[in-house]
């Protein structure tokens, strides 16, 4: 547990020791602004809520989050530091979780720095701040899910570009699972159970209800289990692949 914290700190410091964290945060904030104000019609809607802001997050994360996740393990393998890290008296679980949490914290920091939009909406109107808080939490959990997939993909290869592409592809799959794009593609005779099951696995299904302000324990549980499962897969992949 102590080692988990040490690895977490090292990783987070690593993000801020290089321009990576700053570039990520700045681009994240700019794209968020463009999406919210230009595409989302924040003002035109005339409603004091952050629906246009959060609504674009699944798509924004699709490219931003894999960019952080791609280096998680691929770089350790490429530079050989994985051998250093895993021969220290550290549990593999501590390393996997510590690195994941550091990346998750970075997305959390980026998300927190979007606070001006919260101030704006409170200045302009009288939004339901409970809904906004729930949405922030939900959005952060969803970012965690993207990261967990990224962690596993990054463990699969020593090439971070490949890790990026794999992560984007798989995340895209999970995003569209809950969206009409995929659900409409099922033939009519498909049993409703299957369609529902696929929809239930998608990010959008769970994020939509959260972003509407319903912080259902089942949605939080979904993302938590999802993250845990992909991190477990990461650990297994690392164990198998570290030999080559």
């Amino acid at each position, binding site marked *: 547990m102590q080692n988990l914290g040490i690895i977490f700190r*090292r990783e987070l*410091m690593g993000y801020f*020791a*290089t321009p990576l964290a700053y570039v990520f945060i700045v681009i994240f904030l700019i794209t968020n602004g463009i999406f919210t104000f230009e595409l989302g019609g924040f003002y035109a809607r005339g409603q004091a809520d952050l629906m246009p802001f959060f609504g674009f997050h699944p798509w924004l994360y699709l490219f931003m989050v894999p960019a952080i996740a791609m280096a998680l393990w691929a770089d350790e393998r490429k530079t050989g*530091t994985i*051998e*250093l890290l895993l*021969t*220290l*008296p550290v549990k593999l679980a501590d390393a996997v979780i510590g690195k994941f949490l550091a990346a998750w914290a970075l997305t959390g920091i980026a998300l927190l720095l979007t606070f001006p939009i919260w101030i704006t909406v409170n200045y302009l109107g009288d939004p339901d701040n409970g809904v906004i808080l729930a949405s922030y939490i939900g959005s952060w959990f969803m970012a965690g899910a993207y990261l967990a997939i990224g962690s596993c993909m990054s463990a699969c290869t020593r090439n971070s570009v490949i890790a990026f592409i794999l992560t984007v592809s798989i995340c895209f799959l999970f995003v569209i699972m809950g969206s009409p794009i995929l659900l409409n593609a099922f033939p009519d005779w498909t049993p409703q159970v299957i369609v529902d099951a696929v929809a239930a696995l998608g990010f959008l299904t769970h994020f939509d209800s959260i972003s509407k302000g319903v912080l259902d324990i089942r949605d939080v549980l979904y993302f938590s289990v999802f993250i845990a499962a992909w991190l477990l897969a990461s650990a297994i992949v690392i164990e198998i692949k570290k030999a080559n």
Partner: protein
Amino acid sequence: MIEIRNLTRKFDQVVAVDDLSFEVREGEVLGFLGPNGAGKSTTMKVITGFLAPSAGSVTIDGFDIGGQPLEAKALIGYLPEGAPCYGDMTTVEFLRFIARIRGFRGEEADRRIAGVMRDVALKTVAHQTIETLSKGFKRRVGLAQAILHDPKVLILDEPTDGLDPNQKNQVRELIRNLARDKIVVVSTHILEEVTAVCTRAIIIDEGRIVADGTPAELEARSRYHHAVEVRLAGELDLAQELADVAEVAGVEQDRLDEASFTILSAGKPIFARISELAQQRQWPVEEFHVRRGQLEDVFRTVTEEANRREAA
């Protein structure tokens, strides 16, 4: 004590380490030799718990590396091949990270970091990021992290690779100083290094031990052990002269210098006997000295023998 029992490690179908067994005791500095791809690094990766063995076991002071990895790893300091370090950190930050993981806090951590930085001469680059350092400094940062917790077992994979002669000497000096109450395993392909720092050498080839002994014992296995080198000033058929001397195993003419000959010993020192003969028979000798067995000869002989067996 490191105990390695019937260790085998396979990669898919390739056997990198093949039923290897040996022990290393306190105070021993073991040189681990072998041609490239002989399985040196793989063996070290298994000993340090990075790779799991396909069969067999490794115990460090009674802790099985597979069964109690954390206890075993706590006893080991390891410099992996190429000395990988986190390039985005400064030397001090990196060593602090290692110190924390090794369980040192506060003053104790500071004292140890300062100590290793002094030992491997890193003070000048303390606040430089590791990726900007030269190869020699990077290697020393790697060494520093390996010895920071004063480990009982030190495993160094090619510690002097890529260093200049002065740095090589410093590292060897360091290893000699560290070695007193420790177990040190050094892999290298620089044979002079083995003679310089090791108390024992193991030569492995294709994952198997082909020679094991003190550097002196191994040198004795050289065909040039106790050989006498003679440079003649005039014509003389040495082979003819020595044909009836039982202690002599043969005479070899130097390929480059036709006046130089090496008189091979049949096992015992022959210098006195040869010098006596030379005086008695008035050989036109210009130069006359004993050749030491070279580890290099032994290395070549045992690894080539193994290859021949393989081919047969």
